């Protein structure tokens, strides 16, 4: 029984981690149609921002939840203003540009921080479930994912900012005719996507450590999740993460990590074959 409870927490954690690493991409790729191959590097920068901040004496919670998103969000603004804004509507070109950006960021962080894995110990300690122990930080990651997704849903559903962003992405000219400045909306949306990636990278840093090439481990999974989820941002991310996270974790637990990854990829291929528009292309179509 306690093993089941432990596994349930692990499944929730796998879903939360997948949702966190994907949500920034869901905004940048899902909403804005920019194939951001530097997404993994945004996560990596979030991790470094948090670690550098906490090693300079800033409290760990502030480093994770405030410093990292602000730093990566600002980098997002710079990237959008200098590179991405010239490439809207040219998906293949964004792919090339962001791939170059990803190589540049990996090189830059290697030059600054070296190639050794750095990390911070996870705060909060551990707790007991029956005969088993697990890290309390796991629950924190689950909570952060829930809050982030809830907030995105609330902004999109009830706030003017969300409405304007959705409208601009759907039809920028019409939005401009109604008095919205699309350039600003694009810049803000992109930097929010980057900030959420930074947050995710920071929150996961105490679990997985950070090194310049860690983005590679994230980027494929987040693209699979976003494509699997489909057009609606919060509900697509949640449903695809729930599906893939559960499959991956159960397969890993029953067999090996190698087979867990294989099962995840197989499930993704099957899903895209059956639902080319992603989960939200078929279900929750009227949702967000």
């Amino acid at each position, binding site marked *: 029984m306690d*093993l089941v409870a*432990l*596994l349930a927490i*692990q499944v929730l*954690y*796998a879903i939360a*981690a997948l949702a966190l690493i994907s949500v920034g991409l869901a905004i940048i790729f899902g909403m804005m149609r920019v194939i951001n191959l530097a997404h993994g590097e945004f996560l990596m920068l979030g991790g470094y921002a948090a670690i550098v901040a906490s090693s300079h004496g800033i409290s760990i919670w502030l480093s994770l939840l405030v410093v990292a998103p602000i730093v990566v969000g600002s980098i997002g603004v710079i990237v959008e203003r200098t590179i991405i804004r010239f490439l809207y509507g040219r998906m293949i070109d964004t792919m090339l540009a962001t791939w170059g950006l990803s190589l540049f960021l990996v090189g830059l962080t*290697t030059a600054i921080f070296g*190639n*050794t*894995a*750095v*990390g911070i*110990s*996870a705060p909060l*300690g*551990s*707790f007991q479930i029956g*005969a*088993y*122990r*697990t*890290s309390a*930080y*796991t629950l924190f990651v689950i909570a952060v994912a829930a809050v982030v997704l809830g907030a995105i849903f609330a902004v999109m559903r009830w706030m003017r900012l969300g409405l304007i962003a959705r409208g601009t992405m759907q039809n920028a000219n019409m939005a401009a005719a109604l008095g919205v400045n699309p350039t600003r909306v694009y810049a803000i949306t992109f930097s929010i996507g980057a900030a959420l990636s930074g947050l995710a990278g920071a929150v996961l840093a*105490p*679990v*997985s*450590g950070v*090194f310049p*090439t*860690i983005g*590679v*481990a994230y980027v494929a999974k987040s693209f699979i999740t976003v494509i699997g989820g489909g057009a609606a941002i919060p509900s697509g991310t949640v449903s695809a993460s729930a599906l893939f996270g559960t499959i991956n*974790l159960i397969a*890993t*637990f029953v067999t*090996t*990590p*190698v087979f*867990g*990854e294989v099962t995840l990829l197989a499930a993704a291929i099957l899903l895209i074959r059956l639902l080319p528009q992603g989960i939200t292309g078929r279900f929750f179509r009227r949702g967000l």
Partner: protein
Amino acid sequence: MKVNRRKFLQSAVAISAAGILSSRAWAEDTIKVAGIHDLSGGLDIYGKPMVDALTLAVEEANTAGGLLGRQIKLINYDTQSNMQLYAQYAQQAALRDKVAVVHGGITSASREVIRPVLDRFKTLYFYNTMYEGGVCDRNQFDTGVTPAQTAEKLVPYAMKKWGKKVYIIAADYNYGHITSQWLKKYVLQNGGVVASIDFFPLDVTNFGPTISKIQAAKPDIVWSVLVGGAHISFYRQWAAAGMRARIPMAGSNFGVGNEHIVLSPDESDGILVCYNYFQDLKTPVNEAFVARFHKRFGADYPNITELAMSTYQGFRLWAGGVKKAGSIDRMKVIQALETGLSIDAPSGKVSIDPPTHHCVLDVHIAEVSGKRFKVLVDFAQQKPADTAAVCNLIKHPNDNQQYMIKT
């Protein structure tokens, strides 16, 4: 003097020919040594200290007057943690640079890329990394420790201290697979049981399910054969789950990439390891060596690793072979080393074991304590018994393969 075109051309040719000849004469005056290591990419945590040690060894030899009265020129190749570059640079070293010896290779995968290339082009090869054992090749010398020298000592020590049920987690390539089989063999030999052997690709960072699985299996010891930067997160997650105080851990290659410095004492204290070299060994030779190393690379150098010391000793052994042979000719050096040549190294006496081309050396069991290794037990002059059981290059000089462990 009237300079016509013919005279001008004649003198021009003469001058340039003299230039070429003299530069060739200078080139033949130095002995070229190649180092092939990963200085960037995921494996550079291992490669950098190895190259530093090789650099120091070459500089020391040059300061002492070189070899056979000639200076040594070290050519370093950075393979960038990329297997294809290993093949390319091994060919360049053998064919273009015509080096006297190649020192290098880090993972067992990279060694198996270089080995056939250097065999084919008849270039002597020193592999200076602790590894899973079993390579039998007259062209190659292995100066790192193998399981019979380390695991054979550490397994019974850890089992006596903690209990008989062992859970092995290993990196998913030839080193992890073969090493875990050796561990299993020694665990069974000592009357223990192996709860499970799990393999992880080098980029796995989420060990949550594995930690649950280990708890469900309730082993007495967790044995890590994990490799590289991503796998460091296992130790973090293990400590974060509060498991470090509950199930003790031993490692086959823990600390070789300075994991014990990257991790906090809360995450790594108490892990048991067994190697040939620790920076804190209290011998006069070692203390002098550490002082020289710090003088050259700075007193804040994090740690002189096992692999760095193997590389330093590998170069010294080769230099000893050259001195004894009085030549850098490949076969003469091999024969000189096959006399069982030995050196007085920082880790103690190190000598070549002629039938296997591996080394007889001291090993020590140590425990991580406050980001350092505390040496607990010493074992003098251990033979490479695992390779010796299958490999005899004196009887079969043309043998050329890596023997796998039979289970």
